[in-house]
């Protein structure tokens, strides 16, 4: 299998959506040092959906958190669309997060007092956009996830899958192009989980980049590349399917 990426994104000079190089993160607890990430190097390009999989405690969440600038690496570099996170002060980091990086938490965490559209608009308003403008963009983001009709609904009136899609809309709003999702299907039944993966797939096919932590192989199957973590180390990764894969060899003649 060759290494052509599936999406026919022209090999432009644009920097990767996410680039980690030699990233290490350790935690210290009562018993000493715990290496959560050890020398992680990973590049994710626009259009790519990467699944991050591995046993619990292998470092998936930590990898996503340092990529979003929500946590700091001890050593190594992390760049989002070519901007090095360590070169940013707190305000710069917050701005990059609001404008370029969408984070979907493991647990549904919409604000119950706000409607779907208000939840989605919140990061834009925090970024200083007018309420009206933010609302327009929020409805557009809800449309991307198929929930435009639910803009004025409150979270408790939505199903788990719908709430997760609102969380994805909130991560995408304002044209943010890097999505980091920490087990976004963990709380969902399998059908709804599949729908969420299909949605992430569609956003990547439309040019976003995403890294999704999951321990469900069927959900990881939606990715271009599956990266296997164990004890903070990338131990393996699948090759992206070749662009011209017609899949015909998957279908074999019945013998009996």
């Amino acid at each position, binding site marked *: *299998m060759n290494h052509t990426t599936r999406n026919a994104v022209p090999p432009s000079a644009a920097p990767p959506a996410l680039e980690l190089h030699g990233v290490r993160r350790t935690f210290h607890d009562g018993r000493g040092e715990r290496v959560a990430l*050890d020398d992680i190097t990973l590049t994710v390009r626009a259009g790519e959906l990467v699944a991050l999989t591995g*046993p619990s405690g292998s470092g998936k969440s930590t990898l996503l958190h340092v990529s979003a600038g929500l946590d700091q690496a001890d050593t190594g570099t992390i760049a989002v669309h070519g901007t090095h996170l360590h070169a940013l002060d707190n305000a710069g980091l917050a701005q990059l997060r609001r404008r370029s990086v969408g984070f979907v938490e493991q647990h549904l965490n919409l604000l119950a007092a706000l409607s779907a559209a208000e939840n989605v608009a919140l990061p834009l308003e925090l970024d200083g956009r007018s309420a009206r403008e933010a609302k327009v963009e929020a409805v557009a983001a809800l449309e991307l996830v198929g929930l435009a009709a639910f803009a004025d609904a409150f979270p408790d009136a939505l199903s788990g899958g719908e709430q997760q899609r609102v969380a994805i809309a909130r991560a995408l709003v304002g044209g943010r192009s890097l999505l980091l999702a920490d087990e976004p299907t963990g709380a969902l039944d399998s059908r709804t989980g599949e729908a969420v993966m*299909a949605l992430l*797939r569609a956003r990547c096919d439309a040019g976003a980049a995403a890294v999704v932590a999951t321990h*469900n*192989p*069927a959900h*990881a*199957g*939606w*990715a*271009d590349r*599956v990266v*296997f973590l*164990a*004890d*903070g*180390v990338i*131990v*393996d*990764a*699948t*090759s992206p*399917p070749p662009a011209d*894969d017609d*899949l015909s060899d*998957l*279908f*074999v*003649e*019945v013998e*009996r």
Partner: protein
Amino acid sequence: MSVRNGLLALLAESPKYGFQLKKEFEDATGALWPLNVGQVYTTLNRLVRDGQVVTDSGHGADPATNVGDEGQKRYRITEAGRDELRDWFGTARPRLAPERDEVVIKIAMSLRDRTIDTLGIIADQRRSTTETLQRFTRARSRGEPDDLGRRIALDAVVASISAELHWLDQAEELLTASTESHHAAGARPAQPPTRRRNR
């Protein structure tokens, strides 16, 4: 039995030609299991032999369906065929032990030889199986969204591949735990240190 009963189910709808049965069988199950023509005719001949199907002569090719040349046989289900089909639909298939699985055998055999890196075999298999899963997931998302037969057939494949991946994870955990308890007991490592994770 699946081809035999599948053909009976298609013939229960109306009399059909061999090539037509091949196509309809494949369409019904999302083309997941292409049938070769020889297979279709062998099975039809057995059904005829067993009295479950009879042939119409080609002269009677149905003008309404507009298929079949003169001389081509058209097949028709009999009452005995309908009985067998009813039995098939009406009886759960016992879930027997799965067929011999080469990966299971490979991993079991590797445990007997200390020079073989079982954890490496598991890792290679996991990568390869995951790549297959990615390809089937793509194939499934390409189908017509309302082709329920295809969707169900491909879901079955995705579910069984996922099950293999879960099992590989379990095997790895089991092996790692047993290697560690050997270490703790001061025994020689059951696995060579190559490709060991930094646990």
